[in-house]
């Protein structure tokens, strides 16, 4: 459902050219849970930004659900993000002014659902992440783990085809990290495709497939066999 064909990404400033991705190719099938790993500066984040239609690329082709998205207008990519993609960030990125309910509401507003539909979806996704009782709280009143659950609820509320997670547990302690990872795994079990970027190999082990990036290219692509190790980490 997600296909990168020879994608290159070059950042240019006056004097320097930085190649973040070089002819990067990758296929992700429906229902997969892919962990993308690599050292700092390897191009992980660029990959995620391009996959999430947050950034345009310099060359190559990106097919999402069989459709070439490189030619879409800004408004169209916004719509694709809104309908098909859910984001989970390391820093949660909740909107501090809005309470939990309203944070989950944000993508649904842009989707154009009516009030009843939005309410149903918000309540059911918050139920899923176990935060039904905190709907009126502001993000600042929640722990880091709870905030990330809200972010996950927000990502799920629109029933996206896949989730993009960027170091989802990077700001959390070990116990909370494990809870979040279990939540993400269970979301994958119920059919949502997940792509997670991390520099933590142990975390990557919880995914079904690991893709390693080095210098803007895929250097290793294989199924994970280290599931058990993480559980005890």
């Amino acid at each position, binding site marked *: 459902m997600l296909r990168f064909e020879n994608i290159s990404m070059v950042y240019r400033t006056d004097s320097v050219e930085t190649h973040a991705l070089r002819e990067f190719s990758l296929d992700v099938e429906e229902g997969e849970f892919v962990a993308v790993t690599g050292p700092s500066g390897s191009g992980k984040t660029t990959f995620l930004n391009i996959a*999430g239609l*947050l*950034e345009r690329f310099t060359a190559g082709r990106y097919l999402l659900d069989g459709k070439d998205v490189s030619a879409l207008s800004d408004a169209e990519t916004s719509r694709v*993000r*809104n309908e098909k993609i859910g984001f989970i960030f390391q820093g949660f990125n*909740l909107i501090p002014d809005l309470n939990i309910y309203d944070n989950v509401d944000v*993508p649904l507003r*842009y989707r154009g659902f009516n009030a009843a539909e939005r309410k149903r979806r918000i309540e059911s996704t918050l139920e899923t992440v176990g935060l039904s009782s905190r709907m009126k709280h502001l993000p600042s009143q929640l722990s880091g783990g709870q905030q990330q659950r809200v972010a996950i609820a927000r990502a799920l509320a629109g029933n996206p085809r896949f989730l993009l997670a960027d170091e989802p547990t990077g700001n959390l302690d070990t116990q909370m990290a494990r809870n979040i990872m279990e939540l993400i795994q269970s979301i994958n079990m119920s059919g949502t495709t997940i792509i997670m970027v991390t520099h933590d190999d142990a975390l990557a082990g919880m995914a079904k497939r690991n893709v390693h990036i080095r210098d803007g290219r895929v250097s290793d692509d294989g199924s994970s066999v280290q599931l058990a190790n993480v559980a005890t980490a």
Partner: protein
Amino acid sequence: MFRYYLKLGWLSIRRNPLLSALMVAAIAVGIGASMTTITVNYTMSNNPIPHKSEQLFAVQLDNWDPNQDDPSSFEPPDQVTYTDAMALMRAKKAFRQVASNRSGLVLEPENPDERPFSVDTRNTWADFFPMFEAPFLYGSGWDEAADENMDQVVVLSQAINEQVFGGENSVGRSVRLNGMDFRVVGVLKEWLPMPKFYDVTNGPFDPTEEVFIPFTVAIEHELPRNGNTNCWKPTDGDGFEAFKASECVWIQFWAELRNEDEKREYMEFLNAYVEQQKELGRFPRPMNNRLDDVMEWMERQEVVEEDAQVMMGLSLLFLLVCLLNTIGLLLAKFMRKSGDISVRRALGARKSDLFRQHMIEAGLIGLGGGVLGVGLTLLGLKGIQSLFGDIVDNLVGMDWVMVLTAIGLAIVSALLAALYPTWQACRIMPASQLKTQ
């Protein structure tokens, strides 16, 4: 979505109360300053008789000095001579016409214990009341026969009727003016044309006269005049008769002409009249008769004072400074929110969604500034009143048009100020702010 954006705007305003307060204050001060001066200018350039102003014409005849001025800039005088006023009144070529002048008389109350007092007076003709649509509380104006017969009749203002007759219907009763008895035929309701277009020469913002008597009676009894009198040439001999025959101008002349045809015919009549007078040795300058309708007349007579215009110009520049201020503050505010904006973009907000959201936020700030600005305008007008005293009482009211204008101007100003910051905010790349906290 509008209500959603309103809510977001309100939340955002609450998030930086100090910055928001500064913006609201900047807009309010700019609006307060400019609306104060705009209100004064608006009242000064008000159309005092809107539905009829295009049918009422100030008549100008150029009987002036051929030796003065540069001949290319000859302006006819703003008033007419007695000779010409009477000729035009007698000719009756307009649908209605009225010659009038300002005067002051002394009114003696019936009760000998009360001291006589002076009253502002207008010497005028029967057509004055229907022509300028003076509203009557009791009775009516006088008729043409009264002008002809020099009947000693009078129309009182409501205030004078209150003072002399305790507000009763005084039609038929008698009033003593300068030692002569006048019969009351009518009492006006509150009537305050602003500006007083029918006599801008003697003060466009003066209150309406307190009593009105027939012009013919004032002439017959040589009652005093106290309006502006202008002469370019010595009178021929002494006495009132000589003055009446002189080239001195002191009478305001108005004609009601209902359409273009009537106006054209009247102009032809005026030209023919001046032509005939030229043969008698008058009107030494080239033919230069004018018919200006109410608004043209007030513009030509520069009724709006220069000080008011200068202040309005400066206060609009002041508003500009306040807006530049607001642009800077909005830019700071929106940039501070760039994290939120990135998140919204990632969650599927289009640029147009964010544009709307931020313009509505700016509109809210403008609304706040406008409401506060109306308050400051009222304060500013009070200030003007205390500086100028009673002479501006009639200029410092704020009607609902001005209130809405103030709020509208505030919102439009805020939206204009928000254009650039919002454009910048919408340009924030969705990915740029997501990684760092």
